[in-house]
């Protein structure tokens, strides 16, 4: 509770959590919809452009929404938070791309565009929200990502979808070496599907936890 009193902004109601998650999810769906109906693109047939469209729609929504929840709003204006998010996007993309390459993502010029777009999408799932909220506060990053000890619904909102996306992408890579001869086995299609699925699961989990924590706090107050 001490932590919460220090950072009054980190109390966030479950309806806010719900709103933010629904908006993020809708942005994702909108990305797919636009790709499919406006440009008639498909993740399987043209992963580069589709991923580009999806992250281009997803990341402004994420930055705009999560910048509202920035820590220490008295010191940090809304625009600073947005700038942090914009800066976080390439940095996170670089980290995600390096991680993917270390795990065996193919290296080569023909994969470069795909990897870049995929890692930008991953960055807007994982890195950008926290960059908006916490900036470069090392202790907070460390608590949320290195130790995985988030407290409060806000940190769960940052932590769970990000971890969900990474773990989903990890599992999504498993069908890649199999000889099923399906077009979606190529890098980064199934990995993107896995990441998106993990992200959605993470959002649902975070919302569920927010509800539970909210109920717990109410009970605490009532007592």
């Amino acid at each position, binding site marked *: 509770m001490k932590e919460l009193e220090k950072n009054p902004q980190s109390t966030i109601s479950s309806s806010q959590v719900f709103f933010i998650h629904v908006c993020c999810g809708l942005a994702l769906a909108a990305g797919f919809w636009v790709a499919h109906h406006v440009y008639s693109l498909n993740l399987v047939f043209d992963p580069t452009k589709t991923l580009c469209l999806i992250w281009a729609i997803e990341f402004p929504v994420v930055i705009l929404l999560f910048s509202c929840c920035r820590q220490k709003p008295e010191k940090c204006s809304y625009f600073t938070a947005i700038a942090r998010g914009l800066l976080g996007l390439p940095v996170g993309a670089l980290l995600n791309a390096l991680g993917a*390459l*270390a*795990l*065996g993502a193919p290296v080569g010029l023909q994969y470069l565009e795909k990897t870049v777009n995929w890692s930008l999408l991953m960055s807007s799932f994982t890195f950008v929200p926290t960059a908006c909220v916490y900036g470069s506060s*090392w202790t907070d990053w460390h608590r949320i990502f*290195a130790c995985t000890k988030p407290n409060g619904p806000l940190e769960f909102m940052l932590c769970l979808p990000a971890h969900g996306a990474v773990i989903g992408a990890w599992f999504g*890579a498993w069908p890649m*070496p*199999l*000889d099923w001869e399906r077009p979606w086995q190529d890098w980064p299609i199934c990995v993107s599907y896995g990441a998106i699925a993990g992200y959605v699961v993470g959002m649902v989990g975070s919302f569920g936890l927010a509800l539970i924590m909210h109920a717990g706090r109410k009970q605490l107050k009532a007592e």
Partner: protein
Amino acid sequence: MAPLTCTKLSLITIAGVVTQIIGLSFFVFGFFPVKPALPGTSGSESFYVPACDFFSNQSDTTLPSDQLKSLYQELSGIPPSFDRLILMIVDGLPAEFVLGKDGKPPNKQFKEAMSYTQSLLASGSAIGHHAKAAPPTVTMPRLKAMVSGAIGGFLDVAFNFNTQAMTDDNLLGQFFKIGWKMVMLGDETWLKLFPGLFKRHDGVSSFYVKDTVQVDQNVSRHLGDELSKDDWDLLILHYLGLDHVGHIGGRNSVLMAPKMKEMDEVVKLIHSSINQSQGNGQGRTLLMIVSDHGMTENGNHGGSTYEETDTLALFIGLRNHVFDYVSVINQIDIAPTLALLFGVPIPKNNVGVLIREAFDSLKEDKHLRALELNSWQLLRLLQAQLSGLPCRNFSCDAFYDHQSSGSTDCDHETEDMLCCLYMEATTLYTSWKSKRGFESASNKDYSSAAAAYYKFLKSASEWLSRRSTDKPVKLLALGLATMFISTVILSSLMFCRLREIYHGGKQQSLNLNDSMNGWSLDETFILCVILILVSSMTSSSMVEEEHYIWYFLISTFYLLLLRKTAQSLCAVRFQSSFFTQNGQSREGYFRMCFVFLLLTSGRVLGGWHQGGVNWTSLPDISKWLEQAGSQHVKSLQLISAFLVISIGLFALFSIESKGKCFQMVRLSFLISGLLVLLHITKYQDYTFSSTNYGATLLVQIIYAILGVATIGTVVALPWVIPFSTSKICPTDNTISPLFLSIHEKFPLVELRDSLYVIGWAYVLCWCLLQLLLQQPINTTPILLLLLQILAGTLYFARSGTHHKEWVEIAAFYYLGMAGHFALGNSNTLATIDVAGAFIGISSHSTLLSGILMFIITYASPMFILLSLVMYISMKNMAHLVIPEKAGPGDHLMMMLGFPCLLPLVINSILLTAYTVVLLLMQNHLFVWSVFSPKYLYVCATAVCTYIGVFIVAATGFYAYFVLVMRKQKPYSC
């Protein structure tokens, strides 16, 4: 539960390993029966009674082919009924499509599609059979069975993947010997099996399964041309299209009927041409239509269901004779039938029986003679399998006395029964022969003799084929159970040790990190890896692409290490505002660097060879380098070799001690390093022509120096290492007072110092060997592996108590397996580097080459196990020692317990799991091509683990006991 003592632990471990070896050998001997196959080829001796043949094989191999042909005809006593043979193979055609099933006619659609063939069948000019094929129902083994009459064992198939040419005695070889000219059109498998035998050929690849039209057109386009020629004696037509139709659409594909119609057209064309040429007096031609295997409803094949094993054998051109039944034969029966019809000796390892319908049109004496020849051939095979076959002698001279024994006692033991049946048949035959001249020679005598012969042949064939395919279930179960027990023994030992260390000593662990007691992410992951591996083994494509699993899992583990390091790094940062501990923070950055080194070198290793089966054509670093040119490969090889050698020598020279022994070690490794560099620069281009005397001599000198230096170091070092306060081992920066108090009693520091030097000696020796033996392209992976091992060891040595020891050793084991695939190995036998196995061997020796091949193939897992000696010396284990109770064995157990036990446990779990998988998959389509080679690799890995662990344990024990002895008697040496 009483705590484990060192003796108890080692005894139980040894017992577990011995049990495992016994179980494994039970299983292997049960699963891969080694049947004695007769070497060589049948010659004229096959026309004489076995065991009386004093005719050597040599005499007739030198004969020219036409003389041999007439010799065979004279000896066999059966004039060939045909001059030419057309063998038409329709790949994957189930006999059901042509002959129907269970007396019912085939599907109406199919019957109409093959109307011409059906009309031939109805008129009696074609005789059809259901031929039962033995699994694996895959083209190549089936073709081999058809031409040799033998049923291949498991290992035959596994080991024949590299050398595809058929060397066993077979029909085509026999035909070639008597000077037949052969033409082959169709599946290029024939060309792989019989290179150089065909006068003309047009091979098509069976690789493009989607193509159902072109494959067959490529065969048929030559047909008119070939049929008009008369310069061939055997024409093989192998049509693949029907199999491809099955693979695409299954049995009921819409393409099936048109394809069968196409085949029918071919039959019609050939048959009319045969009739024409017969009229012209060009000789009699037999057309035989066979299929190699059937197909399931989905069009797959490889297994042993009725749908897959039901194949067709159709004779066209035998004398018209309508049979009102369709007999069931074995596919292997085709070989002796064709051999006898065309007057060549039956292939030596044939298990088949001649097909009765094919000989019914012959005269009585010819038919019985054919039966006799077939019986002699099978009897020879029986004699090879049963060395004590009682009728061995009778067949020559004594059986005339035995005539009185009659036909009453032919129902006991197998050997006696077979012998008895044989003698019965010969007796009847001789009596028929003696009566033949007289009027009394009746039809009855003939038929009873023939029936007796068939009875003998059928039972002998059945017995022989059962012997080569049946698996002794009891032996397999026993082997599996023994392996399971040993796994349980080893893992329970492991858990006992874990509990003693991490729970028994809780009062000591107060000062330790919290992560020691919790169940952390990396431990869970290490356990998950085993689960993932075991479950992935059940999928054939995962077995084929196993390297991806290893790379993926090991890099995930490195990322987890990175996360863990970041955790501690931040914690240190957080603390540093209160206490200024710069040293710890720097440690954290060092560890971070090591993890980055692990990650990058692991990634490069993973991209070095594009292994596996399906994606081998994708670009990788080795292909890229080879394309860039051999001088690049060479320079990279030189740089890597130089780096490897200098890293090793740097480590040896950075030891501060100046003793004579150390100088000797340094000098010998320096010399051998220089010699290896010399070999690389001077000779490595010529190693493939192994005749170069200088290169061989140089390599032998290197072997000798390396062997002497390493063994000398191991044996002598514990005797000469000085008892002093100066440390050799570099990373032991936290000697607790507790540790010092133990040190007064036991020579722990000396032990670690000597193990450090011995470990480096092992690592350097192994690296130099690999630099010598591996292909030039693999030199850089060796360097990267060395870097990985060093980075891993240093990381774990510096991380102190952050990871449990078993996690680190398991990680090393996984690293070794990932490196195994990074060196270009895979789960197919084709990737074994055979060329390297002859480096430095002056005369041919299977054993030495085998050892070298093992060293090359298992470079990486063995490397890891050997480097564990170094790891032990660098790991700070002071916190694990329980000082009050510590006896002499406890320290040893602390140091050697996990490094020896854990590789054995992981290996036995994987081995047992894979054995179960192999048993479950024994009827799988890919059991021959994927699962059985993988099992051979798993067995070899087990052997590698045993050897490596033995070396680690023996080194540790030896050094420890020598040092304890010296400590107790300080003035004796």
